[in-house]
């Protein structure tokens, strides 16, 4: 059949060059490569180019001045604050979501009736638009009529004088609550899949040896899950590092700059100051930190996709 096609092609005096034939990867990979290059790589290079310019806020002209933004970014205390908030947020959220996710996965990993339904319910938070999640928690954490705030006031754990999101020391944790609610199910799902895939034999052996449930968990389950945990932590960690939606709708980085992460700060510079080169510089700094941190993680924990 292919011979016939080649013959008929030749008879029309037209033969496709080898790299355009479907045996060659080029025609298959051309569209995706083109999209990623045009809308992904080109803007990235453009961002680097932008970051080498100094923008005059009065004349709105950008002049080539390669050192300007990069010296400014390291001298900017708000940048250092934002780096601190970003790492704090990422680490705390990762720790809570991982531990909670593992515990809930162990709890829900049962074949008995009703558990399938509970597991399906658990996936729902994942698909709520994060901006809407931010709104939900903004409503529930409202200082005067929010249901969560008022429950906390009623139990005496929190004083109405310091609304959670309007107080510098607690605002970031209010946002973390939204993140934990939305993404703990991510960990639950992945851990559950991991648990399901575990071999049965080691557990039978452990049971014969009389190991307790806690011993079995730390000696058997956790080590066997480590590969999956590493993948989950990597994916979640990178997404946490670029958190924006919750912060934008819940606090806009405030009060003051108490909840300003790197992405949020870049957004503020873009929308409020219209200093596009500086916004790009902060965004690139975020990218560099993501690359460095995740590469370290991949090396350290030997993550393989």
């Amino acid at each position, binding site marked *: *059949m*292919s011979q016939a096609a080649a013959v008929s092609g030749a008879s029309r005096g037209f033969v496709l060059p080898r790299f355009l034939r*479907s*045996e060659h*990867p080029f025609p*298959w*990979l051309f*569209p*995706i490569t083109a*999209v990623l290059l045009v*809308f*992904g790589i080109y*803007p*990235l290079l*453009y*961002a680097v180019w*932008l970051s080498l310019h100094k923008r005059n806020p009065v004349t709105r002209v950008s002049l080539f001045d390669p050192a300007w933004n990069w010296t400014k970014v390291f001298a900017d205390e708000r940048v250092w604050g934002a780096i601190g908030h970003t790492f704090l947020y990422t680490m705390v959220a990762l720790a809570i979501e991982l531990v909670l996710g593992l515990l809930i996965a162990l*709890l829900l990993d049962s074949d008995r009736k009703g*558990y399938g339904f509970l597991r*399906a*319910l658990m*996936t*729902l*938070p*994942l*698909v709520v*638009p994060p*901006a*809407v*999640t*931010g*709104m*939900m928690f903004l*409503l529930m954490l409202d200082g005067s*009529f929010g*249901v969560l705030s*008022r429950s906390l006031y009623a139990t005496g754990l929190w004083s109405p004088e310091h609304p959670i999101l309007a107080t510098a020391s607690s605002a970031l944790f209010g946002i973390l609550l939204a993140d934990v609610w939305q993404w*703990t*199910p991510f960990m639950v*799902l*992945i851990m559950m899949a991991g648990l399901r895939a575990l071999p049965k034999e080691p557990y039978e052996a452990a049971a014969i040896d009389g190991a307790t449930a806690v011993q079995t968990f730390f000696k058997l389950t956790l080590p066997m899950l480590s590969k*999956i945990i590493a*993948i*989950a932590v990597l*994916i979640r960690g990178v997404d946490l*590092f*670029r958190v*924006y*939606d919750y912060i*934008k*709708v819940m606090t806009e980085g405030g009060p003051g700059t108490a909840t300003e992460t790197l*992405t949020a700060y870049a*957004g503020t510079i*873009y929308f409020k100051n219209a200093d596009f080169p500086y916004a*790009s510089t902060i*965004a690139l700094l*975020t*990218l560099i930190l*993501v690359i460095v941190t995740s590469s370290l993680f991949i090396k350290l924990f030997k993550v393989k*996709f």
Partner: protein
Amino acid sequence: MASPLVKRTSRDIAAVVVVALFMFPLFWWALTSFKPTSAIFDKDRVVFFDFAPTLINYAVTLLGKSRAELAIDSGDTFGVGGVSSYDSHQTIIDSIIVAVGSTILTIAISIIAAYALSRIRFRGQQAYLNWILSQRFMPPIAIIVPVVFMFHYLGLRDTRLGLVLIDTLINLPVAVLLMKSFFDDVPVEVDEAAMIDGATRFQIFRKVVLPLVTGGVAATAVLCFIFAWTEFLLSLFLTNSIRTLPVKISTFVTSTGSEWGFISALGTSAVVPSFIFILLVQKQLVRGLTLGSLKE
């Protein structure tokens, strides 16, 4: 040692309580959308069920009814006033167009790439895969400023087509890695048998292998739709008048006060399609979330 029955029952109770805690925000959100303004903003007590349910929030946001008229009709004029930019039916239409459009484009581009990555061996294949994976991890903020400039220059700023393209860019890496994992599930012998019969690569792809992965295509499409449906940052930067639902909802929060009734009504409407879709692809969800590296 507690008896097995006690143990089992306490586990059941714990499981139900945990899931109930996670469901509470959704319940509260939906409940709020049926409350009149006076019940939402009650500063003296938390209103659970003792309010007169109303559909006014849905009528204003989804049908574009004027709030003042509805309020006079129903006799509840508490907190009436403000601008009437809460009509969101156009936003819903735009969101659907953008999400469906980018899903179709993403699927079309990713399935052919995924097939080649699964079947054809070439030099630098692993590096190419890593490059695609790295795109998934790029923070959108790193490219958004130049994309705004670029779209402005190309006339794509504040257009549905622009949003379709940018959502496609964001979804492609996930979609191609996920689709590759589905193609990898199909034994190579299937291709080889067809090849002996003289079929070209493209014929094998279209007639033989693609029909075997329709389930995977559907799951990938659902995930792409949900990602596009929930995307926030890029839409916020790229649009002023054409808005997707998450961005539109965020504009209801103003410095003079938030219209929680409208926000929760539109928010609830935005969540329902995702819920329906996600329940359809439960089996493939883990694979989608781990970029195809983990199968259930």
